[in-house]
C-alpha cells in the first residue's frame, strides 16, 4: 500500500507548494475561509499518508476516515472560492457598466445632448454607489477593471487547485475499497475478485 501512501504524501506536499505559489497577488476579496479549509485538507491528507502503510484494520479505518474528511475540506474550500468568484464576477460586470456609462456620458457631453447627460449621470451615480457598496476600495478606471479581472483569473486557478486536491483524496479513498486492498489490511469478509 506504499503507492497510496506516496500518492497522499505527494498530494499534500504538492498542494502545499502550489498553494504557496498561487497565493493571491491581485487580491480583491480573495479572503474568507477557503484558505483554512484548504490547509485543514492538506494536513488531513498528510496524516492519512502516514497511516496508510500500516497493515491493520484500525489504520485502514482511520486513514479512510481522514481521507473522507480531507475530501470534504477541499470541497468546502472550493465552495468558498466559488461564492467569492460570483461576487468578483458581479463586481467586474458592475465596473464594466460604469466604464461604458462614462464613455456614453463623455459622448453625450461632446454632442451637447442635455437630456441624455442628465439621465446617464443619474444612472452612473447609482451604479457607482452600488459597486462601491460591494467593494469600497474600488477604482473606476482601466487599472481598476484589470485588477478585478485579474482577481477573477486567480480565483479560477485556486478553484482548479483545490478541485485537483479533492480528486486526489477521493481517488485514494476509492482505491482503498478494492477487495485486494481490504485483504491487505486484514478484513476477513473481503469479497473474492
Amino acid at each position, binding site marked *: 500500500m506504499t503507492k497510496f501512501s506516496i500518492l497522499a504524501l505527494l498530494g499534500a506536499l504538492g498542494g502545499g507548494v502550489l498553494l504557496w505559489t498561487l497565493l493571491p497577488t491581485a487580491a480583491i476579496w480573495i479572503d474568507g475561509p477557503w484558505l483554512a479549509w484548504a490547509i485543514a485538507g492538506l494536513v488531513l491528507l498528510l496524516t492519512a499518508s502516514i497511516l496508510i502503510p500500516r497493515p491493520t484494520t484500525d489504520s485502514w479505518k482511520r486513514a479512510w476516515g481522514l481521507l473522507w474528511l480531507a475530501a470534504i475540506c*477541499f*470541497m468546502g474550500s*472550493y*465552495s468558498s472560492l*466559488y*461564492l467569492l468568484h460570483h461576487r468578483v464576477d458581479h463586481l467586474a*460586470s458592475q465596473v*464594466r*457598466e460604469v*466604464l*461604458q456609462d462614462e464613455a456614453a456620458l463623455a459622448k453625450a457631453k461632446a454632442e451637447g445632448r442635455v437630456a441624455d447627460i442628465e439621465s446617464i449621470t443619474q444612472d452612473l451615480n447609482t451604479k457607482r454607489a452600488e459597486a462601491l457598496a460591494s467593494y469600497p476600495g474600488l477604482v473606476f478606471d482601466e487599472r481598476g477593471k484589470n485588477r478585478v*479581472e485579474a482577481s477573477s483569473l486567480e480565483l*479560477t486557478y485556486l*478553484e*482548479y487547485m*483545490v*478541485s*485537483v486536491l*479533492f*480528486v486526489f483524496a*477521493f*481517488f485514494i*479513498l*476509492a*482505491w*482503498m*475499497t*478494492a*477487495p*485486494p486492498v*481490504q485483504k491487505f489490511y486484514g*478484513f476477513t*469478509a*473481503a*469479497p473474492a*475478485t
Partner: protein
Amino acid sequence: MIEFFSAVLPLAVPSSASEGPSALESFFDSAADIAWGLPFILMLAAVGLYFTLRLGFTQFRRMGHAIAIGRGKYDEPDAPGEVTHFQALCAALSATVGVGNIGGVATAIWWGGPGAAIWMALFGLLGMMTKFASCTLAIKYRVTDEEGHIIGGPMEFLSRGLGKRFAWLATMFAVCAVIASFGGGNMVQANQMATAFTHEFGASLPSGMTESFALVGDMQTNSIRIILGLVVAVLVGLVIIGGIKRIGRVAGVLVPVMAVFYVGGALTVIFIHIDEVPKTLGTMFSLAFGGDLTRKAAGGAVGLTVLQALTWGAKRAVFSNEAGLGSAPIAHAAAKTHEPVREGLIAMLGPFIDTVIICMMTALVLTLTGVWETFADGSQGAVMTKLAFEQGLPEGYGWIGRYTVAIGLILFAISTAISWSYYGDRCVTYLFGPKAVMPYRTVYVLFLFLGANIDGGIVWKFADVTNAAMAFWNIIGLLGLSTVVVALYKDYFSRPQEPLE
C-alpha cells in the same frame, strides 16, 4: 376537471418574478452549482482518463466491435436478461439525449466560445470509458429479483463487488437515484416539454379548443399545460407499466427516430452552409487550444479564454452524457448476454452518439449561423438553438428549423422521463423489494403531471444535488473494482470473438 386543477395548482410559471429567490432557494441554487462544479467535473474526467490509459484507448480501438454488437451480430436470445444489446443502448440513450443536447450546448458556447464544443467532444470521448467500466460491472454483479426481473447497476456492484462493509454506499446511491428520478428525470423534463409546446404551438391551437378551457388570466397556457401533463402522464404510464421490456421496445423505436429527426435538421443547416464548415471547424479548434477572443455581450465586451472553453465544455459534456453518474448501467444491466465486456462496449457508444455526434451538430449550427455571438442571454440555451436553426435555413423556411427544435425538445423530454422511471424503479426495488415498484410508478406518473404544471424551484435544485451525488458513490465502486474491469477485459479479448448470428 380543468377548473379543479387550475384552482389547486400554483400554475405553470414562477409565482412572481418580482419577489426574487428566497434564502433557501439561493442556498439550493448555490448547492446545485457547487455539486456540479469543478471538483465533480475533474473527478469524472480523471476517471475517464484513468480507464482510457489502463485499457489502452479502447474507445478508439474497439469501436468497430462495439458497432457490430449494436447491429445484433453478438445477440444471445437465450442468455439471461430482458432486452437486446441495442434495446439496452436505446433505453440508456433515451435518458441521456435530452435538453442538454439542445440547450446545454448553446449555453456552453455562449459562455466558453465555440472552442467549448471541442472540449465537449473530448470529454465525451473520456466519458466513453467511464461508461464502459460501469456497464461491464453492472452485468458482472447483476441479480434477479423475486419476480424474475433483473436488478443491476452501482447499487449491486457496490454491495456485492466491494462487500457488505460498503453496502451503505449502495443504499446512498439508490436513495439519491430515486430522488433524482423525480427531479431531472421527471418533473424538469415535463416542464421543459410543456414550455416548448406552449411556446411554439400554444397560439396555433384551434380557437374553439383554447376558448373552451379559458378560465381566468393566462388560462390558455395553463389549460394547455394541464392537458399536456395528463397526456404525457398517461403515455409514459402506459410504457413504464410494461417494465424494461416495453421501455426497451419503445426506446428502440423512439431514439433512432428522434436522433434522425434532430440530426437530419442539423445536417440540413450544415449543408446549406457547407462552404463555411472547414473555416468554422478551424476556428473551433484554434479557440479550444490557443487564441482568446472577445465577444460583445450584455454588459460590455467579455473576453473568452481557453480556460473558460475547457470548463464550460467539460461541464456540459458531463451534464449531457451522464457518464459516471451510474444511471445508464441500470438499463444496460438488463441486456441479454453472458459477457459483461460486450455490454460495456456497446454502452460506450452512448457518450459518442450523445456528445460527440449530436452535441457537435448543435454546436456547428450555432457557430455557422453566428447566433452564439449575437444572442443576448446565455441562460436561454434552448431559445438560442431554436433561433440558430431558424436563421440557418433560407428565408421563408425558418419555421421548419424552429419546429424541429421544439419537436426535438418534446421527444427528448418524453424519452428521458420513460428511462429515468426505470432507474428509480430498480433502485426502489433494491431498497424496498418488488412490492414497492407499483406505488413508485404511480407516484412517478403523478409527478410528471405536476412537473408540466408547476415550477418546482427548491425541489428541482435538491434533485440536482442528489443527481450529482449519485456519481460520488458510483466512482468509489468503479475505482475500487477497476482491477475486476481490467481482468474481465483481458479475458474477453484473449478469446476469439466470432459473430454469433
